[in-house]
């Protein structure tokens, strides 16, 4: 009886998105057997110890547990409510077919790879169409159009080939080195192994500290003024994640949303659709200061360990009320190993830091990446390729 209930309970949780394998269900059965059924609190604690993986799951688990174990009648009702969902697993509504799939099916394959100039031209046409559409309809949802094949190829290429705007950091972990130069150390274990194989050689092997790209936290402004760029940048970030870099992504407009898990999806269209559903404040207003403050308080400690870098993507068009923005940016600078600001609105020549928000942010970033008229992924590529200059002189 109780076994049935636990199996059912696990199934409900699985439908709610918990990753519960059969091993966990078995462990849950054993756990409940061990603590007994006399105290409800013990059963709750036992099941949460076995079934939870992270603290964020707790509220959902508690709600499910309460409903499930309160009353068998209610349980039946709930099961009834869940029934269509459970039985309907086989025939889920199909996700809308991706643009690039339709394209691949209908259009005969292009004879050769389109050259970059060609691709850019095609893209611009498509973007024009998209802009006029979003000008007409101001929806709260981002309504991402799925990617075309050219965009997909370009996004992939950009993410894979372009240098990242952040500096690598030197780790304490060592890797094999060919020469003793540059702070290398002798690897005794490997040397001895070689000596055992080739007894007459005494050539030491070396290791040196490994340099690697640090984890990257992308803070993406998705307010109204940044609307045109969010889709592009999300595609770029998704590409970076597929390149198996450690990338965390948060969006902010009027509130901060963590969308890393959505973007882990391999397919960019599915990933962006999930992100779209998770974020509520597309195209709204901006509160950069309070968003940065919230990031510092709630997320910085969790994401900015091990010399992580921050890529801040915003136009900086916000008022610096009571110096809040400056203070929040200064703290962010202290918490992160490096802060790079990608500003898609500005051109480098003749740029003057006039907006209060820009003036407040500038002293606290290591580097600013200005992108003039970011209209396509190709523009982003150009900006990432050009060497960056320090931000200091912009403030005069």
């Amino acid at each position, binding site marked *: 009886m109780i076994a049935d209930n636990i199996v059912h309970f696990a199934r409900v949780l699985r439908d709610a998105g918990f*990753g519960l*394998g059969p091993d966990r269900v078995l462990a849950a059965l054993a756990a409940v057997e*061990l*603590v007994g059924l006399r105290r409800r609190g*013990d059963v709750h604690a036992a099941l949460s*110890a076995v079934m939870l993986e992270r*603290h964020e799951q707790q509220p959902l688990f508690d709600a499910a547990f309460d409903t499930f174990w309160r009353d068998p009648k209610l349980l039946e009702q709930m099961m009834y409510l869940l029934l269509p969902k459970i039985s309907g697993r086989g025939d889920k509504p199909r996700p809308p077919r991706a643009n690039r799939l339709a394209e691949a099916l209908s259009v005969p394959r292009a004879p050769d790879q389109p050259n970059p100039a060609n691709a850019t031209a095609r893209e611009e046409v498509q973007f024009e169409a998209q802009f006029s559409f979003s000008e007409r309809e101001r929806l709260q949802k981002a309504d991402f159009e799925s990617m075309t094949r050219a965009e997909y190829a370009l996004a992939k290429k950009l993410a894979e080939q372009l240098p990242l705007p952040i500096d690598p950091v030197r780790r304490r972990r060592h890797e094999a080195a060919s020469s003793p130069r540059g702070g290398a150390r002798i690897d005794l274990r490997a040397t001895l192994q070689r*000596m*055992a194989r080739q007894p007459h050689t005494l050539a030491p092997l070396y290791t040196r500290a490994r340099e690697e790209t640090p984890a990257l936290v992308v803070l993406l402004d998705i307010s109204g003024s940044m609307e045109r760029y969010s889709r592009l940048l999300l595609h770029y970030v998704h590409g970076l994640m597929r390149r198996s870099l450690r990338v965390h992504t948060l969006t902010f407009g009027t509130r901060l949303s963590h969308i890393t898990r959505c973007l882990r999806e391999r397919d960019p269209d599915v990933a962006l659709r999930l992100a779209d559903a998770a974020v509520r404040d597309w195209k709204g207003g901006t509160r950069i200061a309070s968003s940065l403050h919230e990031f510092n308080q709630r997320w910085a400690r969790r994401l900015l360990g091990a010399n992580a870098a921050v890529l801040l993507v915003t136009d900086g068009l916000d008022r610096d009320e009571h110096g809040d923005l400056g203070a929040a940016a200064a703290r962010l600078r202290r918490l992160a190993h490096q802060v790079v600001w990608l500003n898609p609105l500005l051109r480098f020549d003749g740029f003057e830091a006039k907006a209060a928000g820009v003036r407040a942010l500038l002293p606290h970033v290591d580097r600013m990446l200005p992108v003039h008229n970011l209209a396509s992924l190709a523009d982003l590529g150009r900006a990432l390729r050009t060497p960056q200059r320090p931000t200091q002189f912009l403030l005069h």
Partner: protein
Amino acid sequence: MSLPLPESVDAVIALLADQNYVCERPLATALFLALKLQRPLFLEGAPGVGKTELAKSLARALATQLLRVQCYEGLDVAQTAYEWNVARQLIEIRLAEAVHDTDRERLTHSLYSRQMLIERPLLRALTQPRSPVLLIDELDRADEPFDAFLLEVLAENQLTIPEYGTVAATAPPITLITSNRTREIHDALRRRCLYHWVDYPSVERELDIVRRKAPGASERLYRQVVEFVQRMRTLDLFKSPGVAETIDWANALLALNTLQLDPASVQDTLGVLLKHQDDLVKMQGGDTAKLLDELRAKALL
């Protein structure tokens, strides 16, 4: 030899209480299950809520050895599991040369024998005659390759050394892993553990803890201290004070012969509770007075 383990959740609570470790029932349940199901217990929570202390108290309570791996970036096998005693291996080679021993098979065998291994905590945890408590502290500070390396030890209680073979545990260790969440630990590792989020304790529980850990003050002062800290945790601070800070603060007030909280004594000792400049400024700017007023309203001052 496995240890005599507590038979119920209440027994776990009593066992830990003997070591002056006061724990909430859900935590005791998770620990009880970890002991019974022989699974590692993965503890997450804010700093200073007693995650590490739990492992220490448990080792004392079960009268067994505590083996601790303090994690940091770049931690590798040589520092945590085992290392070949290369100096000794080199001597072995020289000795073989001196007596003209050319049997390479035998030499290799003796070079990679058990005597040549230097045991580090993870390997030592597997070779003890009596189950030790293995504490992997602040796992979030280590980098991801180390998580992957831990999987075998955690799931199978064994360790594979390429040159030597597999070492299986004689008595399975009781493994506790702690994390402050400065990095997300991989799901593969979470899956192999029982999970518990250690929260700040309730007022009553924290009073009990402070009474045990900072003996000698008046009941009134204990209550003031705990209520003050509990209220502080509801403020928007960068780092809320943990239980460890509460205990330190009570001890600090005792050392200064404070009989009851007043603005001056709080101001002087605030550095014990808060370790960030911004938080200190915030508390000095009127929040201290507000909290003291609240205590006064509750007739605690």
